[in-house]
């Protein structure tokens, strides 16, 4: 749901610029003695920690927000009252709320996430089994999407502006719109139908070898890749129209310097600022992709535990997913801080 930026038409009327000098405005917001980059990274780190705290509180509260008796709901109508009481005590739900919360916190700090209501295994052990699969799947898709989007978006933007290859550019842009409109699980189904059923070329279930990773990674990465490529396309077009690009053209720099040195860093910061969420959103897509391809990761775990109302397991998986998302967010912020000397000002 991006809003198209207002496109200025015609030259702007000449007139003195107003408002306080941007340089001065920047100084006002910068923390003393810290470089803008360092303070930007510190602020983002702080925000990640606050987000983590919100997640911890939310996962704790979720059990309490379930209407009715969560234990009864989890164990089903056939469970004996004794069993319900015993489970309630196991979960600590018979204690006052603040005791429950401190217990939850200290458990987290010791890596103790409780015991699954269904398998009676420690949640942490299950997560340790499942997490690597989801991590690898996410990171592979993350890389494919990020690295694939830039050349496609840049090439179509340059073609669209320059006038050469306009038809091809338009075709690519239509294809991108189409791919964005297809959610990953539908794409997965389509890929299975094509490569698994019709061509019988690739495995369509399980996890292990490289061949088994092809379709899930593709299904997970293609949508974000297309979305990101379109953002890159739009941002690149915007960058190409900026006065500083006119300045660079005025220096008659070769195309290589023009695009790689002058346009690319500015485009990437702009694209990451708007497109960062797309990349982290891909992490959650593993839930659906793992379901389609029957991959034993966190995604299939969370679905089965929600269906079974296995609350300790739900809390654990949500926490791990949130940490993964926050980690990727921080990674993107670091890239932004490295590329953009103004990152501190954009914050203000």
């Amino acid at each position, binding site marked *: 749901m991006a809003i198209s930026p207002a496109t200025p038409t015609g030259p702007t009327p*000449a007139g003195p610029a107003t408002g306080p000098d941007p340089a001065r405005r920047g100084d006002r917001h910068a923390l003393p003695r810290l470089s803008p980059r360092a303070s930007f990274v510190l602020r983002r780190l702080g925000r990640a920690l606050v987000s983590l705290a919100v997640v911890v509180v939310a996962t704790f509260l979720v059990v309490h927000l379930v209407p009715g008796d969560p234990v009864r709901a989890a164990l089903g109508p056939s469970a004996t009252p004794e069993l319900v009481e015993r489970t309630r005590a196991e979960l600590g739900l018979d204690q006052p709320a603040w005791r429950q919360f401190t217990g939850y916190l200290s458990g987290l700090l010791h890596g103790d996430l409780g015991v699954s209501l269904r398998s009676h295994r420690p949640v942490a052990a299950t997560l340790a089994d499942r997490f690597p699969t989801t991590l690898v799947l996410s990171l592979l898709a993350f890389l494919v999407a990020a690295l694939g989007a830039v050349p496609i978006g840049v090439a179509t933007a340059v073609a669209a502006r320059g006038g050469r290859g*306009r038809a091809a550019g338009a075709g690519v842009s239509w294809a991108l719109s189409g791919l964005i409109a297809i*959610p990953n699980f539908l794409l997965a189904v389509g890929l299975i139908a094509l490569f698994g059923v019709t061509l019988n070329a690739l495995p369509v279930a399980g996890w292990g070898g490289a061949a088994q990773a092809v379709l899930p990674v593709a299904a997970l990465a293609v949508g974000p890749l297309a979305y990101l490529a379109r953002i890159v396309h739009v941002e690149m077009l915007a960058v190409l129209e900026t006065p500083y690009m006119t*300045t660079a053209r005025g220096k008659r720099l070769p195309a290589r310097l023009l695009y790689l040195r*002058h346009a690319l860093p500015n485009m990437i910061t702009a694209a990451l600022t708007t497109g960062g969420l797309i990349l982290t959103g891909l992490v959650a897509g593993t*839930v659906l992709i793992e379901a389609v391809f029957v991959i034993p990761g966190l995604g299939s775990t969370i679905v089965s535990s929600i269906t079974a109302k296995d609350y300790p397991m739900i809390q654990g998986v949500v926490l791990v997913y949130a940490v993964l998302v926050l980690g990727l967010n921080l990674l993107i912020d670091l890239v932004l801080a490295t590329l953009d000397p*103004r990152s501190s000002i954009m914050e203000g």
Partner: protein
Amino acid sequence: MRSGLPRGLRGPQGVVTVLGAFALLLVIVLAPYVWGDAATATSVADRVQGPSAAHPFGTDDLGRDVLARVLIAARLSVLLALGATAVAVSGGIVLGVVATVLPCPLRRLVSAFIDILLSFPWLLLALFFSVIWGATASGAMLAVGFAGVPSIARLTYTLASSVTGRDFVRAARIVGVGPAGVILRHVIPNIAPPMLVNTAAYASTALLSFAGLSFLGLGVQAPGFDWGRLLREGIARIYVNPMAALGPGIAIVLTGLILNAIGSLTGESASKTPLRPRASKARARAGAGDPEVLVEVEDLRVSFPDRQGRLVERVRGVSLTIRPGETVGIVGASGSGKSVTAMAVAGLLGPEAAIDATRLSFQGIDMTAAPRAADRRRLGLELAVVFQDPLTSLNPSLTVGRQLTEVSRTHDGVPRAAARHRARDVLASVGIARPERRARQYPHELSGGMRQRAMIGMGLMGRPRLVIADEPTTALDVTVQRQVLRVLRDARRRTGSAILFISHDIALVSGFCDRVLVMKDGQIVEEVAAARLDEARHPYTRALVACVPHMGTDRTRPLPVIDESGGVAEEARA
């Protein structure tokens, strides 16, 4: 603009969208009556069949027709998506608008909270909420709805804040309009159109999201069925009948596209028609001209496409020459074509500009065509440009030094260290103190005047024969303006470069230039020596001189005013 059909509704895309929306509506309303029996009639004989004439999408494990079930599922799928959209949009708008009107510290807190929620993907939020409300259709609807609240809230907040920061809202507050009045009268009317587009877009997202939840088994439960549920059932039999899985998938994608298209129709933000680049051409005689002439322009015409794509001529037959070392000024009101003329001379007009000229050359190089490699090098070294706003015309992510040295390094093959040395000298020569330090800084760390000096310095890295200065001091304070002009003049004295100076300030031009060209409506109406501006013949020039108050203007009389025809209208009648 307020009458007639929305712009998007015209044209083939609009027609297809309307037809698609109509078809979808028909299916939603009528499907259960038409295909109800086929969707529920079980038949053991017809179990799990592939596509056939009787069952285009095949049958399911109870022998029911999949196509009929897909059509019937439209109603539930779309209604649940719309329900989720309603939850997301109403929640998001309330949260976003409330955040806008809160006092500052609270506002930042709420905004930060929205940002935190926003950093989590919708599916994760939806799963979290579906823990609370359970794996039911209504629970999933609430979950998808609540998962959308942060993004709608952020959008509302961003749009609303951009409105509340505008002068017209300040004006309303000054006359005593309260927060509620500001929101009702100014904020809502201004954010409604983009919100509408995004609501439709969110409906499409909600449809896909809901299908995802149902597909995972967390949405609609048997015996009810929506598209996600049908997909879940279909994928189990994908080797027997792929259409059982692909059918609902196609329905989801098509409906998503229709919802999205409805959004872009209702919005007035229909994207600008892509600009069609036009071939520039010089009508013959592009060869070597007079060596005593630096710039030769003959019958220059430049057109730009307007919103409808029609070409509008903005420069209409301009001819001018610049001799080496001359300072030539162009004055005119905004829209007179003075900047376009200058950019045409520099060869820096965008691809959307259609240039037509009998001659447009700089030192014999034809500026209407892409320059050859050798010419590029000459242009890079000998033609410099200075723009109005030095902040936006310097690259924000490269150091000042880098932007200076690259000219020498690219075109002169100067080694890095020598180029740095030269950059330092040039920065010092344009009056920048501590040039080593400034060269390592980024443009945003410099003051406005210093940036413009650096910009001029960039042109001095080569061997400028012509500096094109397009309103170089308009964005600066008067005292800084004088310093920058001084730098420009000193540079000219040192290098012998000519200057093409564009400005709307006739007094400034008269003092700085040798010769002044007065432009109006894309044409040069008069060319006059700067020292003889008071003897100008053309009524427009005389009017331009007369209408600006100066330090000797008679305070007791009204100012002369330029009338429609371009001359001085009645002087002092009041």
